[in-house]
């Protein structure tokens, strides 16, 4: 009778084990079988470039909705655009082979290439482009991601298959940046998408192979796992040298780098300085740094106001005093941040636009640069009447309160954490107490919009066209009185700046536009509402035994390459030898993997056998 009980228990135990297996088994089967359908389309023959996807991943494959960089990178590869952008930021031909503007600069006529076909064989014409733009202009869901790029469009039409006519409300100097790979509007096949306009919000765009046109075609995508692409060997701007492109998803750059080292990956972009230095000089690896159109800054709240001029938020009023902002700039040792936080792989900040775009590069005139000078910072504050209290913290002469500022940082950013500890040390040295607040992305942006902040960590990257980045410093981006409608960067508002902003938008002469943009940067530098800390380099690593020619351009004297565009890098990359590499060190892993499968199966069998045996053993 004892054993009777036990059999029951054993049965349940076995059931628990089996349910464990049942949990595991179908999962393995499903992953195995669901992939079976795809394997026919993505042939395993040919050469494969394995590049880690941007760690942001893919939010959605619907190009009208997506925001994440991983998704934008894929759209650049699988959907065409009117223009291409070279790595140095100049626009060139893509679908449009040439273009003209009317005398009043309001009408653009693009000549669209003929003879191109979508990947399903349907012709690719000007009508597809016109339809895509019109959809974004008329359908609010379609405008989710890229609506603002067409906000100045009056009409778009395709009088014939090779002509596209766009008219704008006011002249628009950045027209050639509106539809470009990755950062601009991707053009989608009308014959596929017109069936989905009614339910655009819920259309996931996940039937593979995806119908598109570009250097690559998307043949498979698994959320959080990988995207697989095949080369378009007839691509109009030059066929990719590899036959396949696989973009696995790694949640952390360390995992991606480990995969690269063991030969499971060929390329990882945007690694951090610590990883870069650890990998430099390793066999079969080429870690290269390239100019990057990105900066990191501290925003200072100059006195948040709404569009009508009503003061809002809880910002410390002392920051409205230019002397305090100047003192903070003087107390910040940007050079040390570059050497310690990014291991010297970047430049101390000055101008508002990253100097990687040479056409907008601006440096403060000699004598006006606010270089690190704590003594001068102290003197500035002394002169302005902020006297030090007994505890070393200065007292605001107007409010008679200690000068204490909140510094909001992104809780998920190791960079913000590192920088904030330096800032707090330097500001303490000039008598300003800093209270570091670690905030989630939502919370930080919420505080920002309401003006409930003193100092905030901020970073931006920009495409070659600076319109958006400059735009968020204009008065038009301040919130309205009800708190909505704002997307200001730091509540900066200056009519003089706004006037220049209008001017540069309609300045069609590059030199003239550059000069206006320079003036705008001068104004921002003196205002100190955005203290640009540094421009960091883009650090990448590629395997040299499997890939060559990936990085574009030649290195300068410091070994730094010009800015890279992955769109071109993936097209130019070529296999370094005939076959893909096979990693031998993983052999044991394979053995253990096989053993684990056998063990699990055997475990299940033993449990079942035991159960049946226990009857006989009575």
């Amino acid at each position: 009778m004892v054993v009777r009980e036990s059999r029951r228990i054993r049965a349940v135990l076995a059931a628990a084990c089996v349910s464990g297996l049942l949990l595991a088994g179908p999962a393995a089967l499903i992953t195995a079988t669901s992939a079976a359908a795809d394997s026919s389309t993505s042939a395993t023959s040919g050469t494969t470039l394995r590049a880690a996807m941007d760690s942001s991943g893919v939010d959605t494959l619907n190009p009208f909705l997506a925001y994440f960089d991983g998704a934008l990178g894929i759209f650049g590869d699988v959907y065409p655009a009117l223009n291409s952008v070279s790595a140095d930021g100049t626009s060139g031909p893509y679908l449009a082979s040439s273009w003209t503007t009317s005398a009043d600069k309001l009408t653009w006529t693009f000549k669209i290439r003929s003879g191109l076909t979508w990947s399903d064989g349907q012709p690719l014409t000007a009508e597809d482009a016109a339809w895509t733009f019109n959809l974004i202009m008329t359908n609010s869901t379609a405008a989710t991601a890229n609506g603002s790029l067409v906000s100045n469009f009056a009409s778009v039409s395709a009088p014939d298959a090779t002509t596209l006519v766009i008219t704008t409300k006011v002249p628009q100097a950045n027209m050639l940046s509106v539809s470009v790979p990755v950062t601009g509007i991707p053009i989608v096949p009308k014959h596929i998408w017109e069936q989905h306009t009614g339910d655009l919000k819920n259309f996931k765009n996940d039937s593979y192979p995806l119908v598109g046109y570009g250097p690559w075609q998307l043949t498979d995508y698994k959320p959080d796992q990988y995207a697989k692409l095949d080369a378009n060997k007839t691509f109009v701007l030059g066929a990719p040298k590899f036959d396949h492109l696989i973009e696995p998803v790694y949640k952390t750059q360390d995992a991606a780098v480990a995969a690269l080292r063991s030969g499971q990956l060929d390329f990882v972009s945007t690694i951090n300085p610590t990883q870069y230095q650890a990998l430099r000089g390793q066999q079969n690896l080429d870690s290269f740094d390239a100019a990057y159109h990105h900066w990191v800054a501290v925003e200072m709240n100059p006195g948040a106001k709404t569009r009508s001029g009503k003061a809002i938020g809880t910002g410390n009023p002392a920051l409205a005093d230019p002397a305090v902002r100047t003192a903070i700039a003087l107390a910040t040792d940007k050079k040390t941040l570059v050497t310690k936080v990014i291991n010297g792989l970047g430049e101390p900040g000055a101008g508002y636009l990253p100097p990687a775009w040479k056409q907008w590069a601006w440096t403060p005139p000699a004598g006006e640069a606010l270089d690190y000078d704590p003594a001068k910072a102290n003197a500035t504050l002394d002169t302005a009447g902020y006297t030090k209290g007994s505890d070393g913290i200065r007292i605001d002469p107007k409010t008679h309160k200690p000068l204490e500022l909140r510094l909001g940082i992104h809780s998920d950013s190791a960079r913000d954490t590192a920088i904030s500890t330096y800032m707090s040390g330097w500001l303490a040295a000039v008598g300003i107490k800093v209270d570091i607040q670690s905030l989630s992305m939502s919370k930080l942006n919420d505080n920002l919009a309401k003006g409930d902040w003193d100092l905030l960590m901020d970073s931006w990257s920009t495409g070659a066209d600076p319109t958006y980045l400059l735009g968020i410093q204009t008065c038009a981006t301040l919130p309205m009185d009800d708190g909505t409608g704002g997307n200001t960067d730091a509540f900066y508002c200056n009519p003089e700046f706004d006037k220049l902003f209008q001017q540069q938008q309609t300045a069609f002469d590059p030199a003239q536009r550059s000069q206006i943009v320079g003036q705008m940067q001068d104004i921002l530098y003196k205002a100190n509402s955005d203290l640009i800390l540094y421009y960091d380099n883009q650090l990448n690593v590629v395997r040299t035994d499997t890939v060559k020619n990936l990085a574009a351009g030649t290195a300068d004297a410091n070994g730094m390459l010009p800015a890279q565009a992955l769109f071109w890098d993936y097209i130019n990359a070529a296999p370094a030898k005939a076959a893909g590499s096979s990693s031998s060190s993983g052999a044991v892993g394979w053995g253990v993997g096989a053993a684990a499968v056998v063990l699990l199966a055997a475990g299940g069998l033993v449990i079942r056998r035991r159960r049946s045996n226990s009857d006989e053993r009575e």
Partner: protein
Amino acid sequence: MSLATDPPAAADPATGARNHDSAPRAAAARSAFLHYLGSKLLAALVSFAITLLIGFVLFQLMPADPVQTLTRGHPTSYAQMVHLRHQLGLDQPVWRRFVTFVANTLQGKLGDSWQFQQPVSGLIAARLWPTLLLTGASTVLSIVVGLWLGVRSGWRHGGLLDKVTSSVALTFWSVPTFWLGMILLIVFSVGLGPIPALFPAGGMSDPSLPQTGFTHIVDVARHLVLPAATLVLVVFAQYTTIMRSSIIDELGSPYLLTARAKGLTDALVRRRHAVPNALLPSVTVIFLQLGGLVTGAITVETVFSWPGLGYLTYQALQVPDLPLLQGTFIFFSASVILMNLLADVAYRFLDPRVRAQ
């Protein structure tokens, strides 16, 4: 790490005879069982209702406006923002949102994720299998390893194996799971000193290999080794401890003396008499763990780039993407509640004393 119910004492062999019940008593027992089942079911439902309430209250307390977050870094006009806010249902009063929320949840509609702009239920479904694979495999391994060690160390408690097992188990219990994962990752995946990189650093499969057939299964198993090992090392101690103490409890029982007196070998006595009776408490623990293990995967999946629910939760946390966080919270809670219910039922089904009550 705390367990939900009292680990029941080991089955008392003397009551085993109650299995031979007469018909009327069996009927009474059946109705008692149904009553028991009903009350447990009701309790589970109430728990779920509370989960819904807590979930909603928690995620409505959050004041941040997600639209600012969603659109930051992207050219966005005011009209786009208003549209987005309307699309997300953020312009409705709170009570209305709650009614909608409950109705939708019961239909399996968990709302749309802010960052992915697609239904949360779909996101969860797409990541369910990888998580089940990881937790399922870890459960099987932990059960096998944990119970075996528990039996051995209980049978010869105070012996070498017992001491080693206890120390190892205690050590692994005392470290953060994700840290253990990181160490395993460095040693076996990056390679340390003479140890080569044996296992892949992350993901569930190597996409450049065929995604079918035996190669694929082995490939997945290879990717599974490190994350599963991490979970097993942390969890197996739970089974070992409980199995060990129930074996020790059995040791003094008269029926074991009888069995020995019959001349059975030590191994036979252990296998056929002590172990079966000592198993009961472990079974309950196993079911409780099944629910808990799913949540244990949160940090492990993050460390090993495992494409499952745990990492989805982590992604939700970064924004925070409230509908998604709410969705995973409800899903995790529901699975734990379900497993607890199963544990209760299994326990009742197994323990003669409870059945007889």
